[in-house]
């Protein structure tokens, strides 16, 4: 049973990675990161069941809280970016390089 959860979690995680790497829209990238975090949460819950302890659940909740904070900041950034360039394409923001 646990394997299935884990496999799902890993798949989600990989999709998240792929999203971060391949997408250029800031929002979608952030969503991909959220996906990765949730994949981790899934793993936590699964392991929690496996170990038959409640620790994992608590941990997942904490992660969600942090993710929420992060998302808030991310959205602020998105607004900021939109103000500067009117676009959300990450490639537009490459002044710093070399």
């Amino acid at each position, binding site marked *: 049973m646990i394997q299935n959860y884990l496999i799902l979690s890993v798949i989600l995680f990989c999709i998240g990675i792929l999203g971060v790497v391949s997408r250029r829209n800031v929002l979608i990238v952030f969503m991909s990161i959220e996906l990765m975090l949730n994949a981790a949460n899934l793993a936590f819950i699964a392991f929690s069941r496996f170990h038959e302890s409640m620790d994992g659940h608590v941990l997942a909740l904490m992660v969600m809280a942090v993710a929420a904070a992060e998302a808030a900041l991310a959205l602020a950034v998105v607004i900021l*970016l939109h103000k500067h360039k009117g676009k959300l394409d*990450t490639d537009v923001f490459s002044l710093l390089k070399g």
Partner: protein
Amino acid sequence: MLLSAFEKVKLENAPFVSMGFFAAAFVMQLTAGNHESALYGSVFNGMFVSNSFTQAAGLVIIGCGFFTAMTCLTYFKQNNPCTMEFYSVLFFATGGMLMLTLSRELITSFISLEIMSLAIYILVGYDRKRVTSTEALLKYLLLGAFAGSFFVMGSALVYGGAGSTKFAEISSFISTHSAGTPLLIGGAFFIFVAFLFKVAAFPFHAWVIDVYDGAATPVTGFMATALKAATFTVFANFLALNGAMQKEWIDFLFYIALFTMFGGNLIAIGQSNIKRMLAASGIVHSGYLLIALVAISTESFSGSVIAYYLAAYSVGTLGIFAALSYLGGKGESRMSFDDFKGLAKVRPYSAAAIAVFLLSMAGIPPTAGFMGKFYIITSAISANQMALAVFGVISSILSMWYYLRLIIIMYFQEPEDTFEIENSIFAPACTFILVFCVFALGLYPIVI
């Protein structure tokens, strides 16, 4: 106890007050002895542990905060002024770092990490009007969150493998079973990725240059020092939780350290902007610290090596960023190598201070940087890592190139600029206090 003090301070906004609080915290941290570890243990259910190592790291971090606050006073006089929140966010960051150093549990670590990171994201992007600042924020936030998710995933895997996220329990699990199970290895690896990202180790280093470049100079200094100190502390704590664990990862860290040192050097050599160069040199220093991590297990001595090196590196880096903050001029207009031509002729004392910091970073005696390097090499050779020691030395030879380049430009070329700056005493004072610290640490290397 210490943390609660910080969180109340957020209402206090004047930088002087913040400096005062940093100073108070510093004294408290200094006086707090090891007996407190018992207290932490009971209060936080083993999630926080204090010992001399974390205490030293805490001192470094608080010191960084103090000097950053001091530098900011001058910096914001000649740049877009900041609001009061800047300092409170600075406190959040510091608090997060302190928690990070103390934490002995994965999720506590994660939360501290995120407290620290979120605060620093804000600091990086604080200057909303500058597009580079925003860009830096974007890059840092994206990649930081990306790395953070690895941390969570890693924690989950470790939790799955060892049944707990407490370091102590993981350790006891490893000593009864083995560190070599796939779940543990994978989990630990993901956690390492996050740490390595934070300390900008190769190949997770690419963000650091752009972010340092984009952030305000005092913030960069703060990031480069305090953040690294906090991360390395928890890294070391995590790695040292069990000897078997550390042995498992020696080879891995060996190569990472190697690539980090040389990659950092190669990036630094090509830079023409001082902040970017310093960012790259920060990568190199992370490489040295990784050497110390490789050598960590043999005896407790190595922990103090890391602490000392962090302190030595911090004073040097903070010092140079402090100097850059006031020499950079309005809107950080002077940041490339060529802008500093002939600085020594116009501002000999500042140039001398920068030279001292650079030499300290390069590891020339009698500065603190030399002693740090000396300890690192000693620990590496004690741990029978002769090869790593030699590579470390070679890498510092390579790094001499760009440090010397700046000194040469400052001293041996004719000035083209008058280097007018805002008349503010704090950043220069901070710079000279740090010069003093460089020598004091170098000549009286108190290894705790």
